[in-house]
């Protein structure tokens, strides 16, 4: 904290990126709603998404340039670290909402619909045929919401995916050690393998979704089991996609010779993010697939 006492503070120049970001997000969300409502792609959506991509490349690009130009003091570095840490915490809370929904359904609402607690009347008057077993292979109202034929098992693809993600965390840590030890070859190798594992994970995840939709009848709209399954794994998959992309960018930067043994915030931020995505997966594996 006392780093402030020497040297001048760094204050960035006025920047267009926040405005670009605002326009990009607004365009994308309007595009998204219009797409949903019209049932066909609204032009605003791809335009907005392209702007978001431009934003990321532009904003991070200028930050990288500034960083490479040595403009950042240790204090700025610390602000970035704090920013990344608390951003990840906010992501944890975002997932917490969906885990909360899962636990609520499993521990409370589904048993209640089956007559548990003081909900005997709920069962008797409204859903006499419903039996509360998780995962739900029969919904309270099967005519309105068609239940899946089969639940997603914990073995097979999900288990392989768990192994892949855990391994990727190890390879990433290996790369990090290599970076600190100044071993560029191992760094690039470790990172490269991590990116590869991320991609394999995503391919297998898509495979699993296809299996769920085509063979198990497990879809977003097959009741609360499908809802929690797809939103949790879906948002996780989205984060893996983001993480893999960021790792790829970091890999490219490493190949270009960016980062030094003791100055590599960009690398670390992405590593934290990747570990976070990993931990979320463990929670998913346990509560969505396994128990």
């Amino acid at each position, binding site marked *: 904290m006392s780093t402030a006492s020497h040297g001048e503070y760094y204050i960035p120049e006025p920047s267009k990126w926040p405005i670009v970001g605002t326009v990009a997000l607004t365009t994308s969300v309007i595009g998204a709603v219009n797409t949903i409502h019209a049932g066909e792609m609204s032009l605003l959506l791809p335009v907005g998404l392209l702007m978001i991509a431009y934003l990321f490349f532009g904003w991070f690009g200028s930050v990288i340039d500034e960083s490479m130009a040595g403009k950042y003091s240790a204090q700025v570095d610390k602000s970035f670290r704090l920013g990344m840490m608390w951003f990840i915490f906010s992501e944890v809370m975002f997932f917490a909402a969906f885990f909360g929904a899962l636990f609520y359904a499993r521990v409370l609402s589904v048993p209640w619909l089956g007559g548990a607690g003081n909900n005997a009347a709920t069962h008797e008057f409204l859903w006499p045929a419903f039996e509360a077993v998780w995962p739900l292979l029969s919904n309270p109202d099967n005519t309105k919401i068609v239940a899946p034929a089969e639940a997603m098992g914990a073995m097979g693809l999900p288990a392989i995916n768990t192994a892949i993600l855990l391994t990727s965390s190890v390879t990433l840590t290996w790369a990090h050690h290599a970076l600190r030890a100044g071993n560029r070859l191992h760094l690039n190798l470790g990172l490269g393998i991590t990116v590869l594992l991320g991609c394999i994970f995503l391919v297998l995840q898509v495979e699993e979704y296809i299996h769920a939709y085509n063979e198990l009848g497990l879809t977003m709209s097959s009741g609360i*089991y499908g809802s929690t399954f797809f939103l949790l794994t879906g948002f996780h998959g989205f984060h893996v996609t983001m993480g893999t992309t960021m790792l790829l960018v970091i890999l490219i930067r490493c190949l270009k010779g960016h980062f030094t043994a003791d100055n590599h915030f960009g690398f670390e931020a992405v590593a934290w993010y990747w570990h976070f995505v990993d931990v979320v997966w463990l929670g998913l594996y346990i509560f969505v697939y396994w128990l």
Partner: protein
Amino acid sequence: MNAVVEEHHDHDHKPTGIGRWLFSTNHKDIGSMYLWFAFTMFFIGGALALLIRAELFQPGMQIVEPEFFNQLTTLHGLIMVFGVIMPAFVGLANWQLPMMIGAPDMALPRMNNWSFWLLPAAFGLLLASLVMSIMGLGSAPNFGWTFYAPLSTTYGPDSTDYFIFSVHLMGISSVMGAINVIATIMNLRAPGMTYMKMPIFVWTWFITAYLLIAVMPVLAGVVTMMLTDRNFGTSFFDAAGGGDPVMFQHVFWFFGHPEVYIMILPAFGIVSSIVPTFSRKPLFGYSSMVYATASIAFLSFIVWAHHMFTVGMPVAGELFFMYSTMLIAIPTGVKVFNWISTMWRGALTFETPMLFAIAFIFLFTMGGFTGLMLCIAPADFQYHDTYFVVAHFHYVLVTGAAFSIMAAVYFWLPKWTGNMYDEKLGKLHFWLTCISANVLFFPMHFVGLAGMPRRIPDYALQFAEFNQIASVGAFVFGFSQLIFLYVVIKCVRGGEKATDKVWEGAHGLEFDLPSPAPFHSYTTPPVVK
């Protein structure tokens, strides 16, 4: 305009033109934008409230259709909460935090600007649906600011999907703002300013920022579930597929209750800055203030279901949430008692900020008492969803949060502009506001206890008199705010020069800076003993 091109070290050089605001990386400019945004929204949200009060002036439907009335209520609540109180506090944080901790700016200035600019976008989306509704094209959100499912999912109007994304944008804005506050406070304090030497306003915002980071993403989560329930066939809130409409309320209030403390903790910080200044006495019980704030924040995570006593929770749950809520009275009481002890045996003067701060202590405490009554579950079965609740939360929000913001503006305006505001008009504004607020909100206790439900466009005859009084109060209150606007503009334009210290009893790093404060607050850190 390309920002990265040229370098300069002239710290008082201000960018000019519209670019100064669009591309700003300056905490003061961004702070001003937040405050003006909040002020604008206050008038819009207030105008909706005045329409509500006009319709409720007497029984019968006079001005609006029931359907439109619900849109008014919903947008009034949403705008006041997300568009007025929260941005105003962020604006104050932007202006004050760097000055108070001896920093040049916020830690992440570009992100700071993004946090701001997302807000006009979010409210643009929201208000667009209101304009469309007035023009007869579809309906604006009409399900209350709490947007309970399935009224907002299966039965929500088309504009609900825009509303959902608008909430996402507000959420991103708040989370980034909070991250910035945390990074600033943790990283940019002047040498020697340990945590337990930080001004209380800084402390309250520090803790508020944690609340924001913890709950805004949960709000984002719940609106996302709404989005998929509405459009992609999920059944989070539909019993037919094993979900539960009440689950919506649990997730919402897990956000919603901490949210109401997000709207009061910075207010506590403001009052804790003002009361010692005009008592000419140090703040009583600094460390207990800090611990009390932290306790309130902690408790706020485990009390949410006191908004849901009537949803049919198991009785053990009801008892738990009743007890945990009652506990909040203790740290809050500590705060009230500390303020009074600060005033005790001081040398009080009553400039406008102090008047608002004193009114805050009186009236917030009133709202706290009714809060305590509400948390008694067996009694809440009678109060819930009546005007008694409306009275409660307007006491804590209007005469609490909004009064604290007015107090803060009067308190720091001379520092911001270098000019003293017009004290006579300030006092006039205070008295009109304070009296009319009570005329407006006090009768709501009575109609509530007598059985008037909230969110109704028309009511039975026995509630007529008190509604009439409230409506009169509302109009006086509303138009008194034009005085406030005038005083602020007048002060920005000029006036008697303020000294650097501004107030005789003032303390704190911000009062060591010249008035008006330089563009980049502390470029070399002051040393705090």
